[in-house]
């Protein structure tokens, strides 16, 4: 895209705390020392700025993800894979009844540019929105520098498998990925691989658990292996998933280590449907008509398994995809 085609980002001069305000359609976003304030023609909402920035970070890094990214029970986005809804109260039964909900649709590049600008301006140098609570500084206070290195991390997306020639790299002390304090007991050995000459691009193995033990981010699935449209997207989790993910397709979780508790609610209304307690070796599907949020008491390894078929958005739009993966 040339400079002349870059989407316009509408922002103000910095306020007395040093932060710019942003507008998208009829939505406006402003922050002060403690809070993010979101306004729209029929209502307003306030969030503590730390959870707001953590949610905003995931929404951008995941390219608006699959389906709905609820920042909380009021604000969020819906990905239509080319354009994106920004909403307030759309998936909140009471906001809808009171008719103060609001939704606007934006071209993907326009909303992404505004969100990226806002994140870059509102994240201070001591705060990393991807880090666990005890591994980062504060999000609060007056503007103090920035942390562009943290907020512009590239999501790891293997083409075939991590560690293969011409693919994503393994993690090591030398490459800056040290073992996380909560995974100090994880075996760091690599598999024994004997390769006959000529087969260097096909005989390959790596330690996924070592790789995950060295992740410097939480709640950020990255692709490690690709079987056509089947993507293994493992991630390390600690504390609370900063968004409430509203599915538009079935998603699977395989708990590789430790434990996560998932709160599951109805995607449209937010009414509770189930709690899913997952321990090492547990496998569970998230149906396509729910929203979910995870709680991980200790840093854990979770395999998120996604179907990235290009046919799915059309099938979803036509109502052709099942809500549950298996009937029995």
């Amino acid at each position, binding site marked *: 895209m040339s400079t002349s085609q870059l989407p316009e980002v509408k922002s103000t001069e910095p306020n007395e705390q040093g932060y710019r305000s942003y507008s998208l359609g009829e939505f406006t976003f402003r922050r002060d020392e403690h809070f993010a304030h979101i306004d729209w023609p029929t209502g307003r909402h306030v969030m503590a700025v730390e959870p707001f920035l953590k949610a905003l970070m995931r929404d951008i890094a995941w390219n608006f993800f699959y389906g709905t990214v609820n920042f909380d029970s009021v604000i969020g986005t819906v990905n239509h894979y080319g354009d994106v809804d920004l909403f307030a109260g759309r998936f909140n039964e009471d906001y809808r009844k009171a008719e103060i909900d609001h939704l606007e649709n934006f071209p993907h590049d326009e909303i992404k540019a505004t969100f990226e600008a806002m994140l870059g301006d509102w994240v201070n140098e001591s705060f990393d929105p991807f880090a666990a609570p005890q591994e980062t500084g504060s999000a609060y206070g007056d503007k103090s520098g920035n942390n562009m290195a943290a907020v512009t991390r590239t999501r790891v997306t293997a083409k*075939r*498998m*991590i560690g293969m020639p011409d693919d994503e790299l393994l993690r090591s002390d030398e490459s800056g990925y040290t073992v996380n304090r*909560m995974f100090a*007991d*994880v*075996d760091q050995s690599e*598999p*024994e*691989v004997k*390769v*006959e000459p000529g*087969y260097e691009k*096909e*005989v*390959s*193995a*790596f*330690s*996924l*658990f*070592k790789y995950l033990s060295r992740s410097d981010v939480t709640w950020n699935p990255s692709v*490690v*292996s690709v*079987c*056509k449209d*089947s993507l*293994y997207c493992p991630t390390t989790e600690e504390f609370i998933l900063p968004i409430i993910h509203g599915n538009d397709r079935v998603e*699977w979780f*395989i708990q*590789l*280590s*430790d434990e996560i508790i998932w709160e*599951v609610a*109805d995607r449209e209304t937010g*009414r509770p*449907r*189930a*709690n*899913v*307690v*997952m*321990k*090492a*070796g*547990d*496998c*569970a*599907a*998230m*149906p396509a008509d729910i929203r979910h949020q995870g709680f991980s008491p*200790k*840093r854990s390894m979770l395999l998120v*398994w996604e*179907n990235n*078929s290009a046919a799915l958005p059309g099938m979803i739009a036509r109502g052709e995809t099942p809500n*549950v*993966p*298996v009937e*029995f």
Partner: protein
Amino acid sequence: MTEYKTVFGSLTNYEKGGVEAINDSPQNYVFSNLFEVASRAKPWEKVAVAKNMEYVIEAIRAEGVSPWRIAAHDEFALVMDGQVTIDLLDPDSVTANPTSTGSVAVDGEPSGRKMGQIVAKRGHMSLLPANRCYRMSARDASVVLLQTILGPDTLQRWPDICQRH
């Protein structure tokens, strides 16, 4: 200061969570535990523990020596317990039907050129490349989680392995 212990499961030592339904059926979550599934399986049975359209993840109890297999697409084997040796072969004459999904067993000992060998322990992931033959072996009962596509040998035992109530 807290000393953290990372909890992994195994065939002989796993703790299962579950679905606590509030206003839903537990069946909608297709909840199982791969160690429990493997502990009840025969060696080398390919039991689906996750399915998303045509794609599956299979839990395999690895014990002894498997038949040689081949698939028309890449597969990925993650050892979840124990130790598994994988031999890879570039076959002379055995081929996978290009439109087929999942792997199929190869009769007997295929001829071809040795590609290499992988010895994988818990947490190690190996590529099983498309159109190559592979054979797994494990001296002690181990568990492999296989990323693949639904095939003729995939076993779907959902009523037996999943939480129903």
